[in-house]
C-alpha cells in the first residue's frame, strides 16, 4: 500500500515510519487511540481523488484530519487505515469584499482566515475555543460552534459552497457563492457536520460579515450556576440578543484564575461573562441593560464592566481556556457538550451538580449560556479504575438528562466515536436508518471515516 500511495502522490507526501504513525494515533479526545497504517498529505484536489479512488478499490479506511483538535474522537484511526492530513492544503484562494465571502482550502486555520479578512474589515464568525489551531475543514466537518452562537449562529450558517470528493472519488461542487440558492437538495448543509463520513472537503466557500466596530464586556458574579442561568433567561426575555453570554462555575473559575491571573472573584459560585458587539452607542446600551438586569437578579454578588478592549480580550481568552485550565486539576478530564433549551438550563445545571455529588466526582461546568450549550467536565485520576467507571456512569446520566429536557448529546463538538453509542437514543431509529442510507449513497464502499455517524 505504501508504495502504491507513493507512486500516486509522491514519496514525500506519504509517511509510514513508526514515529509518524504514533504521532497520529489520537486527537484531542482522551481515552481513544489507535495506530494508522499510513499518513498521507495531499497537496491538491487531484491528490485527494487519487487517494480516495485507491482506498475505494482496496477497501482501506480513510480518516480525514485537520488539526486533530476535535473532542469527540472523530479522527482517531481505531481500525488502521489512511490518515488523510489536509494541513498542507492551506491556501486562502480568494477574499472578496464585494461578495463578502472567502474561498479557502481546508487546512487554513480559523484564526488565520479571520485575521486575513480583518484587513478588509470583515469577520469569519465561527469561533470555536480551538480557533488558533483548528482548521476550516475541521470546523465544517464538525459544524463547530463557539462563543457567538446565540446572536450569530455556528459554522453551518456560514458555509456557502463546497468542493468535495465523494467516497467514489467523484468530485462534487455544492452550493456556490450566493446567499439565495435553492437549486436542488441542500447538499452543502448535509455535508456540514458530516465528520468526514460522506466526503472530503477540498475547497470551502465561506460567508463573511462586516466586522463590528465596537464591543463591550462585563462580568457578573453569582452565588451559584443556577442563579447565573436564571439571569441569562431574564436577559434574553427582556428582548436583547447579545453576542456573548458565557458562564463558569466555581470549579472552573478557580482553575481559570490560577492560569490567567485576572483578579476574578474566586469566592463566587459562578461567573457570567456578558457582552455585545456592533456600533458604539447600541453596544453600550445593550451591555448597560444586561448589567442592570444582572444587578437585580437573585443570587447576584457583583457586576463589573471591562474597562478596555485588552481587559475584555483577557476575559474572553480566559473563558476559552476553561478546559485546559480545568485539566490541571487531575490527570484526565472528560469534557461533555450537551445543549438544552435555555429556560431548562437552571434546572439542568443543578441536576449535573447532583450527579457529581452522587458519584463523588469533581465536575466543573462551563458553557455558552446564551445558546444552552453546557460543558460539564469530569476531572479524574486516569489510573483510578474505579473513578473511571464512575465517570462513565455519570456521563450516561448526563446524556439522559439532556434528552429528558429536549436537549442534545452534543451541541458543537460532534459525535465521532465518543458519542456514537448514544446517537440513536437522541435521533431515533427511523432517523438513524436514514443516516445509514445517506452514508451508503455518498460512500458505497464505506471507506470514509468508517464506524462513525451513519456507517
Amino acid at each position, binding site marked *: 500500500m505504501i508504495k502504491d500511495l507513493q507512486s500516486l502522490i509522491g514519496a514525500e507526501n506519504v509517511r509510514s515510519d513508526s*514515529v509518524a504513525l504514533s504521532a497520529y494515533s489520537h486527537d484531542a479526545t482522551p481515552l481513544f487511540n489507535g495506530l494508522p497504517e499510513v499518513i498521507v498529505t495531499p497537496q491538491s484536489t487531484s491528490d485527494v481523488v487519487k487517494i480516495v479512488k485507491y482506498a475505494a478499490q482496496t477497501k482501506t479506511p480513510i480518516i480525514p484530519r485537520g488539526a486533530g483538535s476535535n473532542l469527540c474522537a472523530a479522527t482517531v484511526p481505531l481500525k488502521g487505515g489512511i490518515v488523510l*492530513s489536509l494541513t498542507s492544503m492551506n491556501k486562502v484562494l480568494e477574499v472578496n469584499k464585494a461578495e463578502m465571502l472567502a474561498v479557502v482550502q481546508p487546512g487554513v486555520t480559523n484564526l488565520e482566515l479571520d485575521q486575513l479578512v480583518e484587513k478588509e474589515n470583515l469577520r469569519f464568525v465561527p469561533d470555536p475555543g480551538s480557533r488558533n489551531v483548528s482548521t476550516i475543514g475541521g470546523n465544517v466537518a464538525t459544524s463547530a460552534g463557539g462563543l457567538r452562537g446565540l446572536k450569530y449562529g455556528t459554522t453551518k450558517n456560514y458555509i456557502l459552497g463546497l468542493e468535495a470528493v465523494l467516497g467514489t472519488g467523484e468530485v462534487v461542487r455544492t452550493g456556490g457563492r450566493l446567499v439565495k440558492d435553492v437549486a436542488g437538495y441542500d447538499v452543502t448543509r448535509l455535508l456540514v457536520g458530516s465528520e468526514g463520513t460522506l466526503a472530503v472537503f477540498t475547497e470551502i466557500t465561506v460567508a463573511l460579515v462586516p466586522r463590528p466596530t465596537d464591543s463591550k464586556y462585563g462580568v457578573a458574579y453569582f452565588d451559584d450556576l443556577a442563579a447565573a442561568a436564571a439571569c441569562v433567561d431574564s436577559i434574553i426575555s427582556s428582548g436583547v440578543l447579545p453576542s456573548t453570554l458565557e458562564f463558569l462555575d466555581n470549579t472552573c473559575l478557580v482553575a481559570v484564575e490560577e492560569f490567567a491571573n485576572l483578579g476574578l472573584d474566586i469566592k463566587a459560585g459562578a461567573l457570567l461573562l456578558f457582552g455585545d458587539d456592533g456600533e458604539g452607542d447600541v453596544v453600550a446600551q445593550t451591555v448597560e441593560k444586561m448589567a442592570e438586569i444582572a444587578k437585580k437578579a437573585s443570587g447576584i454578588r457583583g457586576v463589573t464592566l471591562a474597562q478596555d478592549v485588552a481587559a475584555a480580550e483577557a476575559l474572553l481568552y480566559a473563558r476559552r*481556556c476553561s478546559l485546559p485550565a480545568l485539566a490541571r486539576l487531575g490527570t484526565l478530564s472528560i469534557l461533555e457538550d450537551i445543549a438544552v433549551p435555555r429556560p431548562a438550563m437552571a434546572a439542568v445545571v443543578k441536576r449535573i451538580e447532583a450527579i457529581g455529588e452522587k458519584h463523588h466526582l469533581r465536575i466543573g461546568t462551563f458553557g455558552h449560556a446564551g445558546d444552552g450549550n453546557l460543558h460539564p467536565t469530569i476531572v479524574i485520576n486516569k489510573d483510578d479504575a474505579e473513578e473511571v467507571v464512575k465517570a462513565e456512569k455519570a456521563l450516561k446520566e448526563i446524556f439522559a438528562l439532556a434528552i429528558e429536557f429536549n436537549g442534545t448529546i452534543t451541541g458543537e463538538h460532534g459525535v465521532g466515536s465518543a458519542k456514537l453509542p448514544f446517537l440513536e437514543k437522541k435521533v431515533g431509529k427511523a432517523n438513524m436508518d436514514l443516516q445509514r442510507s445517506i452514508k451508503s449513497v455518498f460512500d458505497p464502499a464505506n471507506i470514509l471515516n468508517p464506524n462513525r455517524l451513519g456507517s
Partner: protein
Amino acid sequence: MSEKFSQDKLDRCISCGYCLPACPTYQLTGAEESSPRGRITLMRAVQSGTLEPENLLAESGFCLGCRACEPVCPAGVEYGVLLEEAREILWQGKNQPLIIRGLFLIVGNKLGMKLLGLLSPMAKERKSNPELHLMLGCFERRLYPDVSKAAAKLAPEVSVCKEQGCCGALHAHNGELEKGKEMARQLGEQLSGTIITTAGGCAAHLSSVIGRDRVKEFSEYWSTKDSSVSKVQINGRTIRVGLQDSCHLRNGMGVTQEPREILKQLGEYVEIPNAGGCCGAAGSYSLLQKRNSRKVVSQKVNDIKALNLDYVATVNPGCTRQLVTELRRAKVKTKVIHLAELVAMGTK
C-alpha cells in the same frame, strides 16, 4: 541517567493542540510529530513501552527547545523539562553528538573555563556589593567579552568574580540534566546573593535550579535601577533599533517588556515581526542542526532586512552569534549588538 519521563508532567498535556501554531518546527513541516503535542504523544508511547526510545532521537534533535509552546499552553505543560528528560534518556553513549561531547569537555571543568577566559578582555575582577554578582557565562566570555565589560561599567555596584564556572544550561539542555543542575547549584554557592546575567538562556536555567528570586537578567536588573540614558545617535540622527527576544528569557522567565522599554529610551524602537520567535540559534542547535537552524531564521533575516534597522539588540549570546552570521550571509547591514552594550553607548 533516568530511564523514564516524569509521569505527572506527561499527564498535564490534554492534546488540545493550542501549541501547534507557536511551534517553529511544526511551522516548517506541518507534521504532527514535529509539534510539541506530537512529541509528547511520542514520549508517552516510549513511556508505556509501545515505541522504542530510539524512535524519539530524530525529533529530540529537531526540536529547538525554544519553549514557545509553554506560554501558550493553558494546561501548564512543562515541555522544556520533558525535552530535557528526553535528551537525558536518549543522548547517551553513541547517541551523544560529538560536538556536545567537546563542548561539555570545555565548560564542565575549571581548566576549560579558565582557558575560555584566558586573555579575554572581559570585565575585570572586583569586589563591590558582596550580595550582587555578575555572571560571565562560558562561551560568552570568550566570544563577546565586551558584553560583561559593558554590564560591569554600567553597574559599578556589582561584584565581578573571575573564578566562576558555567551555569550548566548547556549540559541540562543536551542530555546531562543532573550534571547541569549540579553546575547551577555550584555557581549559586560560588556567587552569593543576586546573580546578574547577560544571557537569557543562562538566566532561565539558573533560576529554575537556584530560585527565580536569586537571578536577574540584565534588562530586568537595569529596569530596577534609577538610571537615565540618552538616545544613541548615528550620523546626527537617532538610531532605529529592534529586539530579538531570548526564547528562554521570554518563555521560561516571562521577561519581555523590560528590554523593549529600555530600547525605547535608546532609539526609535521598531518591533520586528515575530520578535519572540526563535532565531534558530537555540543553544547548540545552530551547530547540531545547521540546515534547520538556517530554515528557522530565514524569514527573520528577511524581516530585519525589510525594516532597515541600524541595530538589532539581543539579550543572549547565542542569538547574537546566529544573527551576526546570518545577516552577514544575507548582506544585511543591520548591526547586531547586546542590549548592555547599547545601553553603555547611551550612557556616555
